[in-house]
């Protein structure tokens, strides 16, 4: 029996995540971790589309903001119950995502990236300028914390941490199941070669649109959680710089890998918190780091670890063939 299996490692990580509030000395760490989990959910959304389906979207900070503002407006202005508003926020994001996807997915590669960059910026502008609805630069204040579920309240930092953690785990499970399934294989076939995918009978538009809407769903969910966690939102959450932060988390962690979004987000959020004293000069560290990773490890930290592992495994079992070890994509 091996103790250091992938499964045991995963269980240990989950136990660690659940016991973290007891270990952490103060709420500050809990706050940082909760926040990075929220970002990670959005990055998982981007990864599903950009990493697995091959369409680099730069509009997802916009969808994050749509999710956040939908929840904010529904709870503050209409006084809707938090949980209903959460569902509503996700649905609104998906609906807008569907309409944008219909048009955006007619473009490919660079054009898709540029188009979605513009879409993201337009979403930001609409939020910033439509003061009647969004309060513009003043921002939206007084968003309620997640509502109680029976006896469970979400007023303390620890309870909010657990709530976000459960959402994150659910998102990872969903993404895991998708990429391991025929649907995931379909997305990866499109990423690999859209022409070939069509030749083997895959309706590329339908599948791309599903992946796009699902990825906006995750971004919207993350935005909604963010709004109720921070309790205040401004148009800046939809800005291009947030988009590039998210993209940086994904690239450093590993685009097209299952654990990449979490690894990248945790690493960079924690690193950037610890480098606060450097202020703007932090970018002097992040810039070169990102460049080096993209040059030497195009699939990020996770991809590098995976390549190293498969190289070792390849040496070990050269010549020996296992029976049907079916892998879709690694984690």
């Amino acid at each position, binding site marked *: 029996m091996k103790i250091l299996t992938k499964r045991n490692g995963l269980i240990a990580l989950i136990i660690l995540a659940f016991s973290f509030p007891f270990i952490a000395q103060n709420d500050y760490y809990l706050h940082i971790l909760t926040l990075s989990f929220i970002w990670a959910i959005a990055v998982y959304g981007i990864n599903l589309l950009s990493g697995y389906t091959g369409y680099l979207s730069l509009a997802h900070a916009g969808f994050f903001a749509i999710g956040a503002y939908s929840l904010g407006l529904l709870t503050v202005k209409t006084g809707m119950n938090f949980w209903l508003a959460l569902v509503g926020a996700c649905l609104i994001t998906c609906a807008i995502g569907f309409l944008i996807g219909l048009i955006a997915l007619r473009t490919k590669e660079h054009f898709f990236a540029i188009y979605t960059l513009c879409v993201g910026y337009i979403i930001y502008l609409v939020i910033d300028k439509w003061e009647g609805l969004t309060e513009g630069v003043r921002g939206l204040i007084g968003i309620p914390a997640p509502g109680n579920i029976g006896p469970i309240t979400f007023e303390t930092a620890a309870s909010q941490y657990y709530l976000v953690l459960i959402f994150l785990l659910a998102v990872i499970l969903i993404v895991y199941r*998708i990429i391991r399934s025929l*649907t*995931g294989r379909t997305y990866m076939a499109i990423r690999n070669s859209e022409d070939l995918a*069509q*030749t*083997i009978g895959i*309706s590329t538009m339908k599948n791309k649109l599903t992946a796009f809407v*699902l990825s906006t769903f995750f971004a919207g969910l993350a935005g909604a959680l963010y709004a109720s966690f921070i309790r205040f939102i401004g148009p800046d959450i939809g800005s291009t710089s947030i988009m590039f932060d998210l993209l940086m988390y994904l690239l450093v962690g590993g685009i097209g890998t299952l654990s990449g979004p979490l690894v990248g987000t945790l690493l960079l959020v924690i690193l950037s918190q610890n480098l606060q004293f450097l202020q703007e000069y932090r970018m002097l560290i992040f810039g070169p780091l990102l460049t080096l990773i993209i040059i030497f490890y195009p699939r990020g930290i996770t991809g590098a670890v995976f390549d190293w592992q498969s190289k070792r495994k390849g040496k070990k079992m050269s010549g020996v*063939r296992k029976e049907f070890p*079916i892998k879709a994509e690694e984690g």
Partner: protein
Amino acid sequence: MLIETKNLTKRFGGLAAVNNVDFMIEKGGINAIIGPNGAGKSTFFNLISGFHRPSSGTVLFKGIDITKLRANEIAGLGISRTFQTTSLFDQSTVLDNVIVGHRLRTKSNLMDAILRTKRLKREEAACRDKAMEVLDIVGLTKSADRMVSSISQEEKKRTAIALALATEPEIIFLDEPAAGINPDETEGLTELIKKLNQSGLTVCLIEHKMHMIMNLADHIMVLNYGEKIAEGTPKEIRGNEAVIKAYLGGSASA
């Protein structure tokens, strides 16, 4: 008649890449399309498989008009093809590359994936079985778990054929299956194509290796500047004046 094209024409700007081509493919044979470089052979394939919309003319499959169908719908009918340059996914195994080829015969969707339903599990098993079956046909069972990046060019060609077979086609279009591989391997590939044909699959291929074509095909069409200049058995083609002129008279090479 399995496939029939009528007055099939494709213009790119002023250039007619395929000009008024009538062609018929009977069920069960091995058909070949030959012609000098730039004769419009690949464009002809693209028109039949739905990648390009013809400027005019029609394509019939078993008498049904498929001219306006999309590529994925045409694949669903049982028309499969390979590309000149094989675009497989390098960082994945041969088996994983082929499994998705059977996707079009499955129904499971996103919800099946998230809930891991019985249907999904059943269909995944079916796709895997199908992949192993077609890998066995093309003789790659032993390489199923190897990374595509580590297999030879000839094995890549076989993988691409396996992928096309996984869609369960009635007819397969092969675009230069023997390009870039050595004479011994070409021999092996010829055998494979014969074997596929004997199992009931109709084959249509583009190829530049004349020796291979003359041995393999029972019906040949010759294109030049987008027009059909000859059609017939290998013997008839070999003695055809227009064909000899097209190949030797111009500067184009065979």
